């Protein structure tokens, strides 16, 4: 598969002035500023193939937004190289942004005072979308995002969910081949989140749009992303398919057993008891060393088991592990 985005050893440095507390600190900072260089993005390398949905995640301040802004040509990197569809966004911004759709969840590109449709009309002219393509795209977008309910409403009167759907539609009007979504579901209710996830899946499957998603909502990640790039302190700490990431970072599973009556010898050589509460016992085991079925059958031979359940580790556990480790 061809790489549509190639990032090589990307670095972005900021010069920050050390701020001290209080008036004295402020004066001192003014007269004798202590400047230091901070690496917001510290040598990031990855490549993304056409048609992938990649979750770009990390804690606040990890360098996610800065990376997105460099990929889209807003910021110039301190060093390193970026190629989007083979072109550097810094060298030829206009050619690159023509192929991009960008949604910043916390900001809108729609005109606050005007009907949603007016903003679309402007974008039609900016991107020189011919009438036919425009009508086509708009009708598809209207269908999936249910824009018809509010396309004639002034943007200031839209709910957050409606506004976000409007913003996503605005980013897709010119049929971009790459879509950047920066926290597209922030603050939305379950319904709106569902609609947006459905839409992302659809454009990815039907049009082969490459999607780069930053989010703190791990449901987004779980339902959408085939691949995760996890960053922390400006560095890529994990990069790979979600399943293998979970397996690597959270290899443990839990078996919860409820007994009929108290029993003295609960131990098993391959499973560790991590919690016990009355008749309920939590065993932690590694699925590489013993399968759930085997563990259950061995335990049931000696224990009077009433009920049991197996818990899979989820993405949240995995991510927490990553953040903790770095």
């Amino acid at each position, binding site marked *: 598969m061809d790489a549509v985005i190639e990032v090589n050893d990307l670095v972005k440095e*900021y010069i920050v002035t050390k701020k001290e507390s209080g008036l004295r600190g402020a004066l001192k900072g003014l007269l004798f500023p202590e400047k230091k260089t901070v690496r917001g993005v510290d040598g990031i390398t990855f490549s993304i193939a056409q048609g992938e949905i990649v979750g770009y995640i990390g804690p606040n301040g990890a360098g*996610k*937004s800065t990376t997105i*802004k460099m990929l*889209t*040509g*807003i*910021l*110039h990197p301190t060093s390193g190289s970026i190629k989007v569809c083979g072109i550097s966004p810094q060298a030829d*911004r*206009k*050619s690159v*942004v*023509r192929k*991009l759709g*960008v949604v*910043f969840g*916390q*900001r809108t*590109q729609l*005109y606050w*005072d*005007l009907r949603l449709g*007016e903003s679309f*009309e*402007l974008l039609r*002219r*900016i*991107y*020189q979308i011919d009438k036919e393509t425009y009508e086509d795209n708009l009708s598809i977008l209207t269908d999936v995002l249910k824009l018809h309910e509010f396309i004639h409403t002034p943007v200031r009167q839209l709910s957050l969910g409606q506004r976000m759907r409007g913003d996503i539609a605005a980013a897709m009007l010119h049929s971009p081949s790459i879509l950047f979504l920066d926290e597209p579901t922030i603050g939305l209710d379950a319904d709106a989140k569902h609609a947006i996830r459905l839409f992302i899946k659809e454009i990815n499957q039907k049009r082969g749009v490459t999607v780069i998603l930053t989010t703190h909502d791990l449901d987004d990640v779980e339902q959408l992303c085939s691949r995760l790039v996890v960053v922390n302190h400006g560095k890529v700490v994990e990069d790979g398919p979600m399943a293998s990431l979970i397996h690597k970072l959270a290899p443990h599973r839990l078996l919860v057993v409820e007994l009929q009556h108290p029993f003295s010898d609960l131990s098993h050589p391959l499973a560790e008891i991590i919690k016990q509460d009355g008749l309920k016992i939590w065993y932690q085991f590694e699925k590489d060393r013993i399968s759930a079925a085997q563990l259950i059958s061995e335990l049931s031979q000696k224990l009077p088991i009433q009920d049991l359940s197996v818990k899979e580790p989820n993405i949240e556990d995995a991510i927490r592990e990553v953040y903790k480790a770095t």
Partner: protein
Amino acid sequence: MGSSIRHYFSVAACFARLAIQRQLEYPLFLFSWLLMIPIQYFSGIWMLKIIVDRFQPLNGWDFPELTFLYGLGLISHGIFVVFFINTWQIDRMVIEGAFDRLLLRPMNVFFQLIASYINFIGLIDCIPGIIIFIYGCQLVGFEWTFLNIIKLLLVLLGGVMIRAALFISLGTIAFWTKRNASMVGFTLAMLERGTMYPISIYPYAIQVLFTFILPIGFISFYPAAEFLNKSSEAFQLPLSFALATPVIGFACFFLSQWIFRFGMKSYESAGS
């Protein structure tokens, strides 16, 4: 090239239509401007009259000449606020992320900055300016010959360019400082003082400043002196002043474009 120009025109027309619609959304706000702006400018000319009547002509400039000068400056201010008012808001656009959005669209950033908000309310600024200027023309007996009209149009064009260049350069500072609203206010006040009174009343250092460094004198003072045949004022320049204004205007404007482009390279966006 032709299609590119058509593209930019079509976008500019759409921007303009949306700007009118946005401004008409708030009729009371429009009305308050309609009330306030004429009061501000007509009281300005009234003050000039009082000063001249009570004391003496300002460094050889009597009331009719001052009216001509003030009117000329006001018209270029009016045209400026119609087309370039967005240069006052660059800092806000940087902080709110609107500037990021300009960079995400496949068009020239400066064009988008200017075209995205044609301030039709600014036409209200032009009306008192035109009235005061025509009144001044009558008082001084300005001759409406073809040549004079051409000169006048060139002077206005140059004056608008000089003003635009100042605020573009100032706006570029917001790429680094993230804030410059107070500087915009200060520059506006300086422009008013530099275009309303003959700069020859100021100390020598200020005259140098307003001629060579911030060429505010070329917005109204030098051309008015030329039109009114006032000599031995401030500096003697070889060119006819009326023609110097558009030349200086274009030079400043291109310089400010260069500054703007340089500033964009170190644009750091804001927040997340």
